[in-house]
């Protein structure tokens, strides 16, 4: 048992830090913040040029074959610096999925362009009436010779307005239980019949609703077998699960620690000497340490060739819920000054605490709500019987 990240990780972390000093300019960070589009093509390209998009990939893809702890170090550095990676991380997740379930042609066409930072892929799972219950997707794909015709609507297609493809869950069979009639496609965003409607969020992010009217997609862009989309989506999920928010929380707590050391309370002493500030930061630090270890446990499993399932759910659940709790508590701690937003000169920690709180809530929703994660932990981790009404829905 060894808790050191290891020399390789430490060196890589330094290398990435140097890279970020050069390429992650204040402008890049602020553009993402101000537009709510958490993606930057230039930065993505720089990441690709440095090989970081393919850091974990095998040599045959030009990859660096970095181990899960080096990848954790990469992720830490990106989080600490608030790098806009929403677009690249989804794209790379889909590339990984294609590597496992894509056709040779898809692999040859899509993966290199993803790893080179040339294309962006967004997700098309959620619909107005299916969120947690993704298998209820109603967007339909109907075969028409060598093509498919897609009709429907997707919610929260974040970055659709920048993306080249949407990785889309569609219904291709209406006569079988809902999980068994789904098929996945890579739909080109420049296809005819796609409409993008921007959606702005409380956290300042921009996402979209996308509409699909008789959108024609060649069968060559079908991912996986017909009616086997649920399985394909589950493969994609294994690359998403365990997405920990603790990195964002570590960044935030460091910012507040700096603020508390550098700013004076009304009594003329630094805030860091105030008991209520100390207790809160000590607690936040504790939660961050605990949550980070849950994330590293997943890396450790990966490193031994195992797939974190329940462990990933625990990491996602804990890190998002604690991130939110820490944000809400730190805003309280700042009192009236806590209302000030980024852009106000005298906002503590440049207003990032206020911003983080508005953002943190959504982390308990996307990538599987806390309720979904608790259900997975209870069922698959603790062996408790299914409770969800989906039992009946699924069997009906």
């Amino acid at each position: 048992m060894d808790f050191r990240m290891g020399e390789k990780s430490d060196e890589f972390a330094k290398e990435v830090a140097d890279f970020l000093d050069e390429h992650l300019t204040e402008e890049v960070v602020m553009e993402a913040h101000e537009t709510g589009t958490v993606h930057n093509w230039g930065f993505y390209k720089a990441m690709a040029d440095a090989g970081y998009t393919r850091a974990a990939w095998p040599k045959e893809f030009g990859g660096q074959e970095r181990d899960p702890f080096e990848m954790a170090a990469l992720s830490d550095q990106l989080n600490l610096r608030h790098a806009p990676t929403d677009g690249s991380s989804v794209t790379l997740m889909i590339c990984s999925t294609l590597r496992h379930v894509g056709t040779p042609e898809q692999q040859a066409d899509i993966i290199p362009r993803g790893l080179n930072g040339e294309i962006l892929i967004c997700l098309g799972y959620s619909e107005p009436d299916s969120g947690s219950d993704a298998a209820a997707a109603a967007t339909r794909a109907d075969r028409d010779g060598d093509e498919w015709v897609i009709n429907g609507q997707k919610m929260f297609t974040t970055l659709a307005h920048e993306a080249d493809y949407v990785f889309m869950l569609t219904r291709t069979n209406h006569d079988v239980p809902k999980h068994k009639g789904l098929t996945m496609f890579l739909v080109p965003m420049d296809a005819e019949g796609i409409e993008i409607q921007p959606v702005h969020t409380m956290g300042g992010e921009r996402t979209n609703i996308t509409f699909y009217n008789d959108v024609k997609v060649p069968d060559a862009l079908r991912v996986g077998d017909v009616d086997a989309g649920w399985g394909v989506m589950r493969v994609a999920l294994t690359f998403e699960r365990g997405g920990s928010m603790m990195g964002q929380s570590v960044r935030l707590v460091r910012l507040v620690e700096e603020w508390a050391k550098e700013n004076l309370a009304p009594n003329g002493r630094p805030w860091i000497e105030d008991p209520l500030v100390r207790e809160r930061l000590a607690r936040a630090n504790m939660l961050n340490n605990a949550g980070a270890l849950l994330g590293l446990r997943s890396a450790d499993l990966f490193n031994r060739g195992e797939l974190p399932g329940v462990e990933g759910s625990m990491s996602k659940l804990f890190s998002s819920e604690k991130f939110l709790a820490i944000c809400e508590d730190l805003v309280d701690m700042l009192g009236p000054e806590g209302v000030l937003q980024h852009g106000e000169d005298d906002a503590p920690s440049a207003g990032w605490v206020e911003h983080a709180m508005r953002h943190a809530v959504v982390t308990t929703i996307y990538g599987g709500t806390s309720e979904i994660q608790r259900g997975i932990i209870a069922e698959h981790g603790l062996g408790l019987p299914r409770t969800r009404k989906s039992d009946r829905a699924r069997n009906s």
Partner: protein
Amino acid sequence: MDLSLTEDQQTITELFASFFAKECDGEFVREAEPLGHHDELWAKLIEMGMVSMGVPADAGGGGLGLLDLALVAEVYGSSIAPVPFVEAVVAARLLAAVGSSGSELLASVVDGSTATIALRPAVDRSARLVPAAAVADIVIALDGDELVAVSQGASNRPTAVKNLGSGPVANVDLTLSARQVLAVGNEAQQLYATALLEWKALTASALVGLGREALRIGLQYVMERHQFGVPIGSFQSVQHRFADDATALDAAGLLARKAAWSVDEGEPDAVALVSQGFIFASEGAQRTAGDSLHFHGGYGFMLEYDIQLYYRRAKAWSIIWDDPRRELARVADALYGPVGAA
């Protein structure tokens, strides 16, 4: 003991409830952002006497007590209307309380001017983060030994800071506008303390109203929203959290009302009760708005849904006063005396 409303109380709360129901929905609130103020709506409310009703009868007002105003504040909080009701009515009552030195300003308030009050003593002649200051004609502040009012014309009102609750919060430089001393020394301190006590009592009730509406919005959503073939409101995890929230809000409502009543009645524990009501209402409103937003799933974050308006204000209305744990320390001061006083 009698926890029912008097007929007058019912009449007045229903009056404002039906007004807000007609004039101010989520869309309306959203359109008034980011400033968080709507002049026309506010003018109508002033016309209805929303401010003057809280001024003592002998000063030309409606003479309502703090409990009556707290009941109106609940209704106001439910609507999250973009108007500075709490600040304006507290400031008006303060102007009435200072007597002759405030009579001219009071007259202008009864005439339709808007006053507000700084929640913290000024430092270096500047009052920080004053609610409603960006839209007020008169700002009252404790400036050293003096309780002062500055009259800011439309041209020299400070710009609102960008803030969580989208309220017209601003920093006020007390040297920029005509400055008038309302009271000095001990009298100034006491008047100011009373005004803050009233501000907390009414904001507590507003937070109770806010929380109740956040709950109502959430309940409506979880009944409409189906997943896995059933309304998500049939899931036990949803039901139990909302049951806890509803319970906490009912308790907070009773506590906030009792606190306001205790100020009216001059009860000895009024100061502790007002602080407790404020803290407990803040917690209830924040938790309820948070749960309601969470159960909206991704929709909760869309600016076009109303629940985010409530979530942000639940926190902002609370902390614009202070860190709740610092307020808890003041509860202890009220209950056990300040440290070292014995």
